[in-house]
C-alpha cells in the first residue's frame, strides 16, 4: 500500500539512508529480540539467529540505501521481520526442517525480491576469487573506497603510485578476462 505521505517510518528510513549509524544501531538493537525469539522457537540457535538477522538486516539496509523503501507502506520493523522470516524459512527448508505452522500468519508485508542472486553474478563472485586477495583489496580500495593511487600505494605497500596503478590495471585485466568468460557461458 502506498500512501500519499509515504512510509510511517519515513524519518528513520531517511536517517539510515543518509548513513546515520546511531539510528541504524538503535534500529538493529530494538528488533533483534523478535528475530531471536522466532529462530529459537523454530529449531535454531543463538548463532543462527544472529546470522539470519545480520543477513536480512543487510538486505534491508541496502534496499533503503538504493531508495527502494522510500514508499514503504508498513513500519520498517514489520518489513524487517518479514524479510527475516522468509530467510529463516528458506534456511530451514535447506536443512529439511519445517517451520511451526501458523507462525507467519500475521505477516502483512510483501517483501521486495533482490535480483543480485542471479546465476551470472553468483558465478562471477566465485571466479573473482581467482584474482587473489591482494588484487581484491586493490580493486576495493580503488573502486569502492575511491582512494587515490598515492593513498593506495602507502596503504597496501607499493613503492609508488605508478606501481600501484599498473598493478591495479593488471588486476582488473585479470578480473575482466574471468568475467568475460562467465558472461560467454551465460549467454551461450
Amino acid at each position: 500500500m502506498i500512501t500519499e505521505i509515504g512510509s510511517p517510518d519515513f524519518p528513520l528510513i531517511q536517517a539510515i539512508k543518509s548513513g546515520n549509524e546511531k539510528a541504524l544501531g538503535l534500529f538493529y538493537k530494538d528488533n533483534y529480540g523478535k528475530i531471536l525469539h522466532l529462530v529459537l522457537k523454530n529449531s535454531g540457535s543463538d548463532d543462527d539467529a544472529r546470522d539470519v538477522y545480520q543477513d536480512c538486516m543487510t538486505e534491508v539496509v541496502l534496499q533503503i540505501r538504493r531508495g527502494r523503501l522510500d514508499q514503504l507502506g508498513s513500519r520498517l520493523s514489520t518489513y524487517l521481520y518479514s524479510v527475516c522470516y522468509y530467510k529463516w524459512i528458506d534456511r530451514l527448508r535447506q536443512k529439511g526442517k519445517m517451520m511451526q505452522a501458523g507462525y507467519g500468519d500475521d505477516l502483512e508485508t510483501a517483501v521486495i525480491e533482490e535480483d543480485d542472486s542471479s546465476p551470472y553474478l553468483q558465478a562471477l563472485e566465485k571466479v573473482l576469487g581467482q584474482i587473489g586477495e591482494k588484487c581484491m583489496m586493490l580493486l576495493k580500495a580503488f573502486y569502492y573506497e575511491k582512494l587515490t593511487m598515492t593513498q593506495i600505494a602507502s596503504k597496501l605497500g607499493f613503492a609508488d603510485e605508478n606501481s600501484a596503478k599498473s598493478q591495479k590495471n593488471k588486476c582488473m585485466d585479470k578480473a575482466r578476462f574471468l568475467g568475460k568468460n562467465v558472461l560467454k557461458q551465460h549467454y551461450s
Partner: protein
Amino acid sequence: MENEDRTERIDRYLENTLSPAKKIAFENEMAANADFRLEVEAQEAVRNLISSQAEKENLRQLFATFHAEMEAMPTGKEESQVNEYLQNKKGIQRQLQWSNWSYMAIAASVAILIIGVWTVWNNTKLTGGLTGNKSEIRVDERNEVFRVPMLSWKTEGFKPVLQDRRMIDVTIVRSKEYHSHYRFTDILEIYSDKLTEKQQKISIAYDVDLQQYRLHIGKSSYTIRKTEQIAPLRQP
C-alpha cells in the same frame, strides 16, 4: 601497456568522462566488436560486484559491533544495584558519566573517588588487579576513570570477525610531565591535559592476527602495546 590503457579507457567510458569524440569512437568499437562489448560489460559487472561486496562487508562489521554492544548491555537488575550502591556511598563518590555512552551500553560498573590514584596503582598486586566488576579504583578529583569496550578481531577471508569483547578500565591522568602518553597493563592510563571521556568516544581494538592493540579516541587512532612504562601515544 596496451591492456592497462584498455582498463582505464573502459573505466572512463563507464564513468562517462570520455570526451564526446572518444565516446563515439568507443561506442562504435563496441557495436563492431562483440568481444569488446563483452569486456566492457564484464568490467562493469566486476566493478559493481566489488563495490557491493565491500558495502556488505562494511555493514557486517558494523552489525558485529552493534551486536557486541548489545550483548555488553547491563541488565536492569545490575543497574539498579549500582544505583543503590552509589546512593549509599554518596558524598565521596560520583557516578561515572555514561550519558554519551548510552548507546554503547557499557556494562554497569562503579568507580569510587577517594584519594590519590597512585595509592591503588601501587597496591595493585595486593588487591589482585583492577579488572573485576567489583574492583574499586581510587582517584583524585582531577582524574577520570571509566570503562571502555575492547573488541578483538580476526580476519577470516576478507571480513573481520569479532572474537572477544571485554571491558577495560581506563583512566585519564593529568600530569605535569606527560601530555600525550599511555601506560597499558590491566588497565589503560592515558596521560593527557585536554582529553575527557565526555567529549570523545574511546575504545580499544585488538587485532588477533597482528597481535596489535589500537586505541581509538574520537577519530584518531593510536597503536599501543602492553607496557609497564609510560610510552608516547603515536599514530600509525
